[in-house]
């Protein structure tokens, strides 16, 4: 039984399948709702709070700076969301370097984020 609500694109971003923390939370909530332990409304409240907490944590707790370079394979701007697909990208942060053959970047407009 899936939670029956439509999250905003921004909130969905952190709960995206491939964001570990968001996915784990969504899975946990799904399980609890399907077993009846948790009501869907309450699960939704948890997710809303998760978005806020995640945003705040990223703003305050994380201080690292990253640079990205790569070949832009695809770009898309729709509903104020930029989606880039890069190939052979290099992500450089203070202490590590990551190279990936293909990566998708989804970015929401920071100016719209006054929730």
């Amino acid at each position, binding site marked *: 039984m899936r939670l029956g609500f439509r999250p905003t694109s921004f909130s969905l971003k952190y709960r995206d399948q491939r964001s570990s923390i968001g996915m784990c939370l969504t899975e946990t909530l799904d399980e609890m709702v399907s077993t009846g332990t*948790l009501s869907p409304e309450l699960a939704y409240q948890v997710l809303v709070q998760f978005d806020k907490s995640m945003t705040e944590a990223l703003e305050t707790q*994380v201080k690292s700076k990253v640079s990205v370079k790569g070949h832009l394979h695809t770009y898309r701007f729709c509903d104020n969301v930029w989606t880039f697909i*890069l190939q052979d990208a290099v992500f450089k942060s203070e202490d590590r370097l990551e190279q990936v053959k293909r990566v998708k970047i989804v970015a*929401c407009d920071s100016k719209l984020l006054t929730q």
Partner: protein
Amino acid sequence: MANNVSAVYIHVLDDVISKVRDEFINYGVGEGVLNELQALWEVKMRQCGAISGNIERSALPKNAAPITPVHDLNVPYEGPAEEYETPTAEMLFPPTPLQTPIQTPLPGTNDPSMYNIPTGPSDYAPSPISDIRNSIDLKAGRPGSYMPPSPWMSQRPLGVDVNVAYDEGREEPDRGSSHQHATQDFFMNSSGKRKRDDYASHINSGGYIPQQDGSGDVTIELSLTQDVVSQVKTSSIVQDQGTADSKFLSKKAEPALMLPQHDGIHDEYDDLFHLQGVANEDYNTPGDHVELRAATPSVGTPKPSKNDAGEDDEPPLNEDDDDELDDLDQEEEETNTQHLVLALFDKVSRTKSRWKCTLKDGIMHLNNRDILFNKATGEFEF
């Protein structure tokens, strides 16, 4: 850095739990459910590898003393004894035999004495540090950050296998389609949507392929018996079929070059046939053929035949240029190991083909690890 990410995640987890606590109370649900939520969430994150095993937890006392409404996150986590008051977490990770005499070192209790006993307790694996770490993980019952995240790992093999099968199954027809590229990946992808039609018919016919798409499918026919080949020859015939036919019969690439080229335009077909000759050897085994076809989900009409038909009259339509992109899109939906960055953008700009952007507050999932950033600058070449 992984620890730092774990710390942030734990902080978020605790923050969420503490903030929804009031909601739970208002709904009359009770603390037990909240604790279960927290425990389950945390367990999943450990399984994913999103949290490593060695982080400071200030939230666990919350489980031990569920009555505390306001929780001071600044209080350092104290002592392993309280950890055992989290029954759900413990039950989910039953102690392994190795761990029995030792307390489970939940994160926060980075007890060096336990970890630095290479040969001490005979319960542990012998000396190497890696073994110790493995045994520690066993002991803790929780996978460390270097353990593969199960949800993604479980899906990855499928993706890889499919791709390999793609290559095997689609080498030959694909080569004809893509004039420009010789890489197998492209062949695999450029087979594209059209190949699905043929694929279905291949499967149904059990190796015998009725020509349904109307153009001469050189490579497919050749993988079958000669009867079928001759049947194909009588169906929609393109001149090159004769070329390919004899080529396949001889199992050599050279005959293709010796035969007159009737389509007149694309000399690179010589090269293509040469390539096809190499691949043909695989296709001459019907068994292999069937197996290889079966593995190719996105199958369409083999490209050389289409090109044969097209190039008689006009330049190539480049119909398949976007197939690679489409297949990539599908591929990314199938596999959750996709590298991904979720962030906010401040500015995105472009000068000619040079893109620049500034991002902030993002999560990156790359190479199976999570990295958080406050600011990011990107420079891409389109």
